[in-house]
């Protein structure tokens, strides 16, 4: 009984650690650390502006808006225009997973077209995604074959293949975020995001030409 509990706790700790490692790996490849660094710099600038000009000054408002833009950028892995951010937040409220929204924002697949927000569905996206996957798989297989057919001891071969596999396990998600995962996110959540964006878009006022009033 006690051994069972211990093994369950051990498995839990291992799965927790693995999910943390995967999370760190994705954050690294997404480049969100760069936006975080920019946000920290903006906070330092904000502190200075608040001290020098006060909280109600125009300078403080400008810095605050820029900080807000970066804050949302950190949340969705990349800063986006306000209309796109509003669409992302509306989609999240509608229950679309944040990971899909992050992938859409990261790849700029969610775009502002005129006054609307649309999902980009390019014909080359699946071609690029699966080409990248095949390329990486072939490269991994080639390197592994070189190690396996080398005249080294079997222990060295196992370690070599494991090291190469670990390297590609770390490398592939970097490609995946911008290829297969991005394509899958568009396929999975694209339509729902567009619907949520449409539902959340602010009402448009009719534009009346000035000439019409003058006549």
């Amino acid at each position, binding site marked *: 009984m006690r051994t069972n509990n211990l093994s369950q706790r051990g498995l839990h700790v291992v799965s927790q650690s693995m999910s943390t490692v995967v999370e760190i790996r994705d954050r690294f490849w997404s480049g969100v650390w760069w936006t975080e660094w920019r946000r920290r710099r903006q906070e330092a600038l904000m502190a200075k502006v*608040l001290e020098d000009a*006060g909280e109600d000054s125009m300078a403080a408002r400008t810095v605050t808006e820029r900080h807000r833009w970066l804050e949302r950028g950190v949340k969705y892995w990349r800063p986006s225009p306000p209309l796109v951010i509003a669409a992302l937040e509306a989609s*999240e409220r509608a229950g679309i997973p944040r990971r899909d929204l992050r992938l859409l924002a990261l790849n700029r697949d969610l775009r502002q077209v005129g006054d609307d927000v649309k999902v980009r569905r390019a014909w080359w996206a699946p071609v690029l995604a699966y080409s990248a996957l095949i390329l990486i798989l072939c490269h991994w297989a080639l390197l592994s074959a070189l190690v396996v057919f080398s005249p080294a001891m079997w222990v060295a071969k196992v370690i070599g293949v494991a090291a190469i596999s670990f390297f590609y396990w770390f490398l592939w998600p970097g490609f995946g975020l911008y290829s297969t995962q991005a394509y899958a996110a568009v396929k999975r959540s694209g339509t729902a995001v567009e619907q949520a964006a449409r539902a959340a878009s602010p009402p448009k006022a009719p534009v009346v030409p000035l000439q019409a009033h003058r006549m």
Partner: protein
Amino acid sequence: MVIDVQNKQDGVQISEHHSDRRAAVKPRTFGQRLRHERDRLGLSQADFAERGGVRRTTQHIYESDTRVPDLNYLERVQEAGADLAYLVLGERLPPGRQDTITLSYATLSNIYRVVDEFCRDDDGHPLPLDSRLRFFQLLCASVKDRGSSDAELESLRSELARFTGT
């Protein structure tokens, strides 16, 4: 500087008489209510930040609705005199109604659902038990004051969604 002090004094005095321009329009967001409470207490941003245990920049970020504070901050500002129910829900609790509560099974289930929905981190994992418990207590107190019908809980839920920016 003189103008700032004058405005602050006006803010305190007038808001108590419900004729302040800011009070006339009910503050919709948490940040606006936080600023309103700070003005009511007559504290500067730096002073209020110190009482909340955060830096002035963080206080400004909270007031501009860019980020939401944690429960520790809310508890500290409550100790400093801020009305927590007003900050979170936008309505002031009448005095003398904060001791015991009686809630039905259905209401408790609804509160549990709200806690389960909102007490999650950026990646959707549940917050620590301590944080969830405090949020639960806060909700129980709020529901007691507002009533426990489905409509009331739904309005509470939408206010919380606005508060957390989700």
